[in-house]
């Protein structure tokens, strides 16, 4: 049967690639390479990549709480230097199974029969997965950037549903789950550029402990004050933690001066 063999947390700061301040991004980019190497070592054949829309995919006329791409996938739709665009190898059968299991369990997934992903999924796909398309992507979007937001507990429980779905998928897939986003950043607000290292450490410490409950219980108002509106993306981390159910280990952390995000990279262990 299919299984989740591991997970990862990554940041997706577009400024790493746009680099308007002309800072050296080498160290910051190394986190993606480290994850790509681990994905290969784990023998992964599929990746559930969890991102947040930035009012790029979904407009005011329809804002899904949770969306999954069950057909062809392409992107990222927002161009970034050094991030290839175009078709992304997808896994419609696994995606549809995750959706079906979720619907049975009461998770009202929105289905995208075709999906153009933005940088929150495009960056990890292009930077953390092998370039040859040997690891197929299942894209998942949570409402973490645009209100109304998915509740943190719901995001975590959705991850647990994904885990159950993978376990019941009739195949031999080795699946990694990537939560994209989550550390301190203020998107589009005057504080943009501020990075709160203490907040970021608190988040990463909880990830290493496998302590999802403390993140679930963190009020949005606290996150907004100390981590910014971008840190509301802890929802993606929680979903990945729900899917893996183990602790984790930080791979790298950078408060890169050329960007606007605390850049965190971590590996999540999948519980036995």
């Amino acid at each position, binding site marked *: 049967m299919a299984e989740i063999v591991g997970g990862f947390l990554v940041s997706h700061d*577009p*400024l790493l690639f*746009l680099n*308007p301040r002309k800072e050296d991004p080498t160290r910051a980019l190394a986190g993606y390479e480290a994850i790509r190497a681990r994905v290969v070592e784990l023998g992964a054949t599929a990746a559930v990549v969890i991102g947040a829309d*930035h*009012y*790029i995919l979904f*407009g*005011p*006329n329809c804002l899904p709480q949770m969306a999954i791409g069950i057909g062809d996938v392409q992107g990222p739709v927002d161009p970034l230097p050094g991030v290839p665009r175009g078709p992304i190898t997808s896994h419609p059968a696994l995606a549809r199974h995750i959706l079906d299991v979720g619907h049975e369990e009461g998770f009202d997934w929105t289905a995208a029969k075709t999906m153009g992903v933005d940088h929150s999924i495009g960056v990890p796909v292009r930077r953390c997965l092998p370039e040859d398309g040997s690891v197929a992507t299942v894209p998942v979007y949570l409402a973490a*950037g*645009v*209100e109304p937001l998915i509740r943190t507990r719901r995001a975590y429980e959705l991850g647990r549903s994904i885990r159950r779905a993978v376990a019941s998928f009739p195949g031999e897939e080795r699946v990694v789950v990537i939560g994209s986003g989550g550390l301190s950043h203020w*998107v*589009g*607000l*005057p504080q*943009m*550029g501020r990075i709160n290292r203490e907040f970021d450490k608190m988040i990463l410490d909880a990830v290493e402990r496998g302590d999802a409950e403390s993140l679930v219980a963190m009020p949005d108002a606290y996150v907004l004050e100390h981590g910014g*509106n971008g840190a509301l993306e802890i929802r993606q981390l929680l979903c990945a933690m729900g899917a893996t159910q183990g602790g984790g280990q930080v791979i790298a952390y950078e408060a890169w001066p050329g960007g606007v995000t605390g850049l965190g990279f971590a590996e999540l262990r999948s519980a036995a």
Partner: protein
Amino acid sequence: MSVYGLEMALYDITTKSPVRKQFIAAPEAAVAGYALEADEQAMLQELDVGRLLDAGVSPMLTLGLWMCLRGPQTLLDYLEAVAGHDQGRP
């Protein structure tokens, strides 16, 4: 006053190339199709991202609008434009 109407206009300008081209070429005509009051239309036409934030528009959209129209290398100019403002609640 319609924050959601403003967000719809910003979303269309930032994600739909024909709307963006029309907005650049003829901003008055482009925004006339939305249920916006005169001062809201002015905020858009003047790319007044500070006032748009104050009105409650999502910062994802104000930043996206700026980047689409001024280019991704102008982030520092954006930050200058929104200094002293904050997002209101729609």
